[in-house]
Structures are given as C-alpha cells and as structure tokens.
C-alpha cells in the first residue's frame, strides 16, 4: 500500500509510513470492537484513525436502557475511555462525521473538511432509527432512542412528568417505556402487531409480558396504527387510525432500525438492504471492509450485539492475514427490564416437521417452549424462568443431537443432564421424599406416596386425598409417575375421563370451574394458567374457550373472531360451494307482506339460487357471496328484520302453531308466547344450537316434543318439557313442570336456558346433557329451588342485556369489514389496488 503521505499527522507514534493506514468510520461498538480484535492479534500492523459522529468516547450502546432506567450512569457504560485511544496510538476524531469516501484517491473527507488517506477503510456506521413519516413526526418532543443525546432528551422530559407515548412494542420500545415509567412518566406503548415483541416471542409469552407491564402501570395498545402526531410546535398527543387520541408530552419512536448505508451508497459500493460483504467482511471494493449493523451478510442484516462480536473476530482474522470466515449468526434476545425474565432464540414459528414441547407453571408465572426438529433443538422461548436460556442457546448453536435427552429437555439442564436418570419415572424415583411435587398446594413426594399407600390408586383419588395436582395440574405427570412407581403393575394407567381436547389434560368441567375460580378472562390466560400443551390451541378448544369465557364474564369478555367457527364469524351458513345462506328472523314464525317483499327483492338482487322454507318456519336465502353479505343484511335490516342466528350455537327459532286466536282447538295464545320467548332469548350464545316450540294444544302441531325446550298449552296453563331432539338420535322431551301463567313459563324458560349455558359442555345439545345429569338434578335446580331459579333467570337476562344485539346491523355499520372483502385481486399482468 503506497498512498502519498499528506496526513495532518498529530500522531506521536513513530514511522506511520511503514504501517498500513486503517481508517475506521464509526466510533461505536462495532468499530471499536473490530479495532480491539485487530490489536489483540497484531498491535503494530496498522496506524489507526477512528471517526465518530458523536462527540464522546466509545460506550456500550445496549446499556442505554439501564442508563435511562437509572440503573447505571454514563461513566459505567464507557467501554474505552480516552486513555485506551492514547495507549494504543489511535487517533480519535470525535464529533466530526465522515461525509464522503473518495475510493480512487483512497481518502475520506469529514464534515469539517479534513481529508484523511487510507490503505484500508472500515465502515462501521451502524444503523439509523426508522422514523414513520406520519404528519407531525418532526414536531419538537418527538424523538428516537438510539444514542446518549436521545436519553438526555428523555430524562429532561421526564423531569416535568406528564405523558409519554412510545411507538413500537419491540425490544427497544419496551426498554424505553420501562425507563420512562420508572422516571415517573405515564407511559402508553403503541404496537402495530397483535403481540408485543412478535419477532422474538410467541403469543403466549407475549401475553404474559403484556400482563406484567400493565400490572406495572403501563398502558399497552396493540394493533395500534399511528395516523398522526398532534401538536402546533410541541407534541400534544398521538392519533390512531381508528380515531383514538392519546395525550403525549413526549413521543419516542422505536419502531425499528435500518442499516446506515448512505455513505457507502454514495461511494457506489454494492448496497442492498445493507452494505454487501463477503465472509471476510470485505465489500465490493477490496480495500474497504464493513462490520456491524450496517452490513448485509449472506442476505441477513443483524440488529443485535452477538453477531457483531462474531463479525469482528472474522474481520480481524482476515486483516491480520489469517482468514477464518464469518458464517452468519444464530441470535438470542433478552429483554433488559428489571424483574422480567424473558429469553428467545432461534426459530419458533413451528411447522409440520417440528415438535413443540411446552411447559407452563402458572403459580410461578413460567412459560417455556422449545422447538425440536428431528434430533436438533431449533428454537426456544422462555418467560419467567430463563436460567436455562444459555444452555438451550448452546445446544442450538452447536446443533447438538438431543435425542438422548429429549424427554427431559424441557425441564432444563439440571434435569436433562442428570446422567442415567433420563427415564421420567426413574428421575421421579430419584427425588427425595421431601421434594415438592405440587407447588400450588405445597405437597411433597412423601405426602403423595403416603396417600397412594393409603389406598389412592388413580389420579383423581390422589387429587382428592392430598390435593396434589388438584389446582393447576402441571404436576400431573409427576403424580402419574409416582402412581406408576408405587403401584407397579397394579396401576391402571392414566385416567378414563376425557380431556377437552389434545391440548390439555383438563375436562370441560375442570376448565369452566377454573375460569370462574381463577377469574380467567382471555383465551391466552386460560392456556397459560391451565398449562395448555400447544401454543395457540386447536379448532376444537378455541371455540369452546371463547364460549366459556363469554358465558362466565358477559361484560368483560373480549370477543375473539378467530376462535369462532366460520358460520358464527360470518353470521351466515357456509354451503358446500363456499357461498352462504341467509336466514332473517321471523318472530314465532310470523311474517308480513312487507317482509316477504323485502326477502323476494333481496333474493332477486343478490341472485339467490334458492329460497327454502326451513324446518323451523323461516325462509332461507341460498347462494349469497361473502362480499354481498353486508349489503343483503342492510336491505333486510331496512325492512325491519334482524339476524335469525340460523348459523349459531345459539337460540335458533321458536316454532309455533296459530293457537287460540285462530284454531278451533287452541287453548292458549301459543303464537304470542312463542314471540315473547323468542324476543327474550334471541341473540344468546349457547353450548350448541337451541330450538324452542310452542303448541297451542296437545295435538302438538309445532312438534314441541322433539325440541330442546317444548311448551304444550293446555286449558289450565303451560306444560314445559326439555331435552328433545329430532336429529340422528330421536329423543322425546322429558316433562319439567307446569306453569300457570305466561310470566311463569318465561321464568322457567330463562332459568333452563341459563342452566344449560352454564353447565353443559360446549357442543353438547340439551339431549345428551339432560341424559348425563338426569332430570332429577334439573328439576332440583329449576323447579324446586325457587331462589336458585330466579338467580339463573337474572343471570340470563343480564347476559342478554349485553349480548342481545343484531350482529348484522353491526356488520352493516362496518364492523369486521375485512371479513367480507378480498385482500386484493390479481388480474393477469395487472393488479388492482388492495381493497
């Protein structure tokens, strides 16, 4: 290397001419670490100049969060102070950014006009924060979280308190939010995605994190799309696309980073997302290298610190003539928020050829998930207990064969590495008698063994006898191991009761009891507390949980459309060709010429291919496209009709005969009572579909004796019977009671419906439920226990005050409109703009 010597040289070191001149652009973590690595290999090879844009020495950028939170001071996060530069003969040019690279002359030009020649140039410009270009993003009080200046601005803002809005619920955003919250600001985090830190966490861990942050007083809004930052000169608030406005005295944008490549791009180096480098970190110009967050290696850009260390080692090896080659990094993440332990590494997106092993310990707030592919660990998410994070990360990076420790892998290193004790039974056998088996109820192994010796011979009798595994159930496997060890061949094996689905060991009844006792209010919360073995359930348990939650907590439940079967999500019945059928409600089966005209017009307008009278005395309009549903509903609404819920696990129809008003045999106004019953019960969600009929005399023209609830009018009143079914297994109703007045009949109806709602298993019709619990039980609750009946009625009417609304009208008004629109449309060689 023979560049001319025109350097403004203040260096005291001798003979810079004999040494190659290395210029480093960037005084950050990557630039300085690269220099350290080079010096450690060959301290005399290069004469080094480092340019830094910030007017200070090299500090540990990832420790800015602890500085903001007050856990550390700036002095504590300095990596290299001035004496390091001096001792190693490095010239530091701080506060003077390089603005141009002249590749032909091999020199760089700084903002102050200084021209510095190089033999080798190292670009370590790092990354820039990504700014969302919404209106108001340049207002004073809108900042990023990237360097010490940003931290100073946040600390100044926090001195006067007030509201801070952090845009971005990723690693950086949450650390900023935590710091500002500790500094006394009222913090709201806005996150575009449904799950916090979705790139590092799965839904379950994201849920736990969110709950903890909310408990600490932060407001978390997910799926929050920022429309505008408001304010005249200084920020006053943030407005979301859905119209929500949030007060703000400070807005921190922490939505992400992008490689800082402008300098390289202007110098015409090869740049894609980042500066393209080979395995030796050399760019498209052999004299120029690059390292850190600004580079793109084998298609990947990194925003974490560990890859940076690996890149710097490869770079230094190459620059000291011993190339080793960088092969890319597997990354792991830890959140630096005190008191929250969270770790994630590798790939946990799941897949057919991968297997999830999930362990949840609700009492300790622990969620662990490891993902195994073949004989290798490929990903891990840990929340609450991250002690084994580094062990998993090590297995993952070294691609170790884990087949021998697979069974015990989820229990962590101490357990899995226990030598010969890899069979779960022998591992349990090896535990001491005072080892705790059940954390919830504080039951030791000795107590469980004593309970088994005392006669308990299955899980349920152990649960009844000593309470082990009777609460959260996470120690079920351990208890079953103890049964198997203690009883040997006498152990009958696992229980005979049927769990809700393959995602859990709990029965429907266990789950419902726990929802009430533990006040569980969301699906992820149920899955965590009850130790679901899958990350987001299955098509069998999700609709059931959604129902159990809405039934238990009518006012607090947040509807989860993704946990509804298609018909309930679309409020229409899907047909085999993918179109839908639409059934408007006709109270008691009564209609009018106007309603019929509206139905006929709608059938014409939307080209219905069939209109059919149903078994429940309604009209069913077939062949409607999902895009047309909101408009046909609007037309039917305009004629005064609401959803008939012919698609729901819900009250379907109340079928009636004409009764005493017209029929010469009629004893009571069966139509009138039917309409009242339908107006009371429509819109209520149930474990399965629910049909009512009212016949005006024992001739029973409304076929009341094969309905979930049938009423037969007689001269002296109304005979109520329940549990009938005209489906695959024909079942006549069982007599419940007689009511003397309409009012009394309606009270029994409400109470019976509510008992069914609260106690039947999801997807049980009344017939199997009545057979299982018996008519004596139902009569005991509904007929003999008057205060109990009135309480059931009251709970039903309260739930109806929340749930009885026309879902069609809501959709017509624009709710869930994405369900009725295509995301876009492809026409060959042209594409329509997304809807």
């Amino acid at each position, binding site marked *: 290397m023979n560049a001319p010597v025109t350097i403004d040289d203040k260096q005291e070191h001798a003979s810079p001419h004999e040494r190659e001149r290395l210029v480093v652009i960037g005084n950050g973590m990557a630039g300085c670490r690269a220099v350290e690595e080079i010096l450690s290999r060959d301290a005399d090879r290069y004469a080094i100049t480092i340019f830094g844009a910030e007017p200070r020495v090299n500090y540990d950028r990832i420790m800015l969060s602890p500085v903001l939170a007050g856990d550390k001071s700036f002095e504590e996060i300095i990596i290299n102070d001035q004496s390091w530069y001096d001792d190693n003969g490095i010239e530091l040019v701080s506060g003077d950014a390089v603005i141009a690279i002249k590749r032909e002359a091999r020199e760089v030009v700084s903002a102050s006009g200084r021209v510095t020649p190089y033999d080798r140039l190292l670009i370590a410009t790092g990354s820039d924060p990504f700014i969302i270009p919404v209106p108001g993003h340049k207002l004073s009080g809108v900042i990023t979280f990237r360097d010490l200046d940003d931290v100073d601005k946040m600390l100044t803002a926090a001195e006067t308190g007030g509201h801070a809005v952090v845009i971005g619920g990723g690693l950086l955003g949450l650390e900023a939010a935590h710091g500002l919250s500790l500094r006394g600001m009222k913090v709201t985090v806005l996150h575009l995605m449904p799950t916090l830190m979705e790139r590092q966490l799965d839904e379950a861990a994201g849920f736990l994190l969110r709950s903890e942050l909310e408990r600490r007083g932060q407001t978390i809004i997910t799926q929050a799309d920022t429309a505008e930052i408001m304010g005249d000169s200084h920020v006053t608030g943030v407005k979301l696309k859905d119209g929500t406005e949030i007060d703000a005295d400070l807005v921190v944008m922490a939505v992400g980073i992008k490689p800082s490549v402008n300098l390289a791009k202007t110098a015409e180096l090869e740049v894609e997302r980042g500066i393209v480098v080979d395995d030796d970190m050399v760019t498209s110009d052999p004299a120029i290298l690059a390292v850190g967050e600004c580079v793109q290696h084998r298609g990947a850009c990194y925003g974490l610190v560990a890859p940076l260390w690996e890149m710097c080692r490869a770079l230094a090896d190459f620059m000291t003539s011993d190339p080793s080659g960088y092969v890319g990094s597997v990354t792991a993440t830890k959140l630096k928020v005190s008191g929250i332990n969270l770790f994630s590494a590798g790939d946990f997106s799941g897949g057919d050829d991968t297997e999830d092993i999930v362990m949840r310990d609700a009492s300790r707030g622990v969620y662990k998930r490891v993902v195994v592919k073949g004989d290798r660990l490929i990903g891990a998410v840990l929340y609450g207990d991250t002690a084994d994070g580094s062990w998993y990360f090590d297995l993952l990076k070294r691609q170790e064969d884990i087949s021998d420790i697979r069974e015990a892998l989820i229990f962590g290193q101490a357990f899995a590495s226990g030598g010969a004790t890899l069979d779960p039974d022998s591992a349990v056998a090896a535990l001491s008698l005072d080892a705790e088996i059940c954390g919830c109820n504080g039951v030791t192994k000795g107590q469980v063994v004593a309970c088994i010796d005392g006669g308990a011979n299955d899980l349920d009798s152990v649960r009844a006898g000593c309470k082990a595994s009777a609460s959260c159930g996470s120690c079920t496997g351990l208890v079953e191991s103890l049964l198997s060890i203690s009883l040997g061949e006498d152990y009958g094996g696992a229980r005979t009761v049927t769990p809700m689905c393959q995602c859990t060991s709990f029965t429907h009844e266990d789950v419902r009891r726990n929802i009430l006792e533990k006040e569980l209010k969301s699906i992820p919360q149920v899955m965590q507390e009850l130790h679901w073995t899958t990350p987001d359930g299955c098509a069998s348990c999700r609709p059931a949980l959604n129902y159990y939650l809405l039934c238990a907590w009518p006012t607090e439940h947040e509807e989860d459309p993704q946990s509804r079967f298609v018909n309930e999500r679309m409020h229409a019945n899907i047909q085999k060709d993918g179109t839908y059928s639409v059934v408007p409600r006709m109270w008691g089966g009564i209609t009018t010429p106007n309603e019929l005209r509206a139905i006929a017009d709608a059938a014409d307008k939307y080209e219905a291919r069939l209109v059919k009278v149903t078994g429940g005395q309604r009209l069913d309009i077939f062949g409607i496209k999902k895009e047309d549903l909101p408009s046909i509903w609007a037309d039917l609404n305009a004629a005064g009709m609401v959803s008939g819920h012919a698609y729901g696990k819900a009250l379907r129809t109340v079928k009636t005969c004409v009764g005493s008003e017209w029929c010469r045999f009629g004893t009571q106004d069966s139509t009138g009572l039917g309409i009242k019953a339908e107006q009371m019960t429509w819109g209520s969600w149930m474990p399965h579909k629910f049909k009512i009929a009212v016949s005006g005399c024992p001739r029973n023209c409304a076929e009341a004796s094969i309905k979930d609830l049938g009423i037969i009018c007689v001269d002296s009143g109304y005979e109520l019977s329940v549990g009938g079914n005209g489906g695959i297994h024909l079942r006549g109703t069982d007599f419940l009671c007689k009511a003397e007045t309409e009012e009394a009949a309606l009270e029994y109806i409400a109470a019976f419906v509510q008992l069914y709602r609260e106690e039947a298993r999801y997807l049980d019709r009344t017939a199997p439920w009545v057979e299982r619990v018996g008519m004596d039980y139902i009569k005991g609750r509904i007929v003999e226990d008057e205060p109990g009946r009135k309480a059931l009625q009251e709970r039903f009417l309260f739930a109806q005050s929340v749930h009885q609304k026309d879902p069609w009208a809501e959709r017509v008004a624009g709710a869930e409109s994405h369900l009725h629109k295509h995301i876009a449309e492809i026409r*060959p060689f042209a594409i329509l703009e*997304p809807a």
Partner: protein
Amino acid sequence: MMVEAKWIDIGPVEQLPALGARTLPVQGGQEIAIFRTATGSIHALANKCPHKDGPLSQGMVHDTSVTCPLHNWRISLLTGEALGEDKGCVPVIPVKVDAGRIYIERVAALAGVA
C-alpha cells in the same frame, strides 16, 4: 415493469388479523387464501381443500395449520399437505414480507391462468 416483477405486492401485513385469513381472487385462475399465524408468519395456499374444495380461508388457523370449515380436515400451511389420517395436498404459493408488505410469487399465483 409490473409485468417483469417476480413478486406481486398484495398489500400491508396489518390487513391480515393474527390467526386469520383473507382471499385473493385471480382472474381466470385459482383463488388464493393468505394466512397469518399467531407468530406473524404469512402463508398462501390455493383456497380449496383437497377433500371437497372447501374454502380454507374461512377455516380456523392454529400453529402452522388451518382446519377446513366444511369437514375439519387439517391442512399444513407450510406444505399444503393434509395432516393426520387424511391424504391430499393443495398448492402452496410462495409469499414473502418486505417492509411490512406482503408479496406473492407471480408465476405460482398465475399458475393455471389460461
């Protein structure tokens, strides 16, 4: 320009709810279903169950599979194969996400267009 592009931009990721799906009709071709899993990954399959042509876009998404709304067949979002006891396969259309937008591979999306 559009004509040569390997990928077609079909809109921003946030148009897809987590554990949800949207449809993408292809004029003269097979409608495509675009899915989003709980972890945020995006997948695309022909919107047609291998069993009886059920619209997979209307099914329930869990983990990396979707359950068909008509007869509860479980289809892998990764391979398009029916899971469990059932046998059958539906075409997978390559998708990618870049800067918050979903792109679908042109050739695969237009497969079967006359």
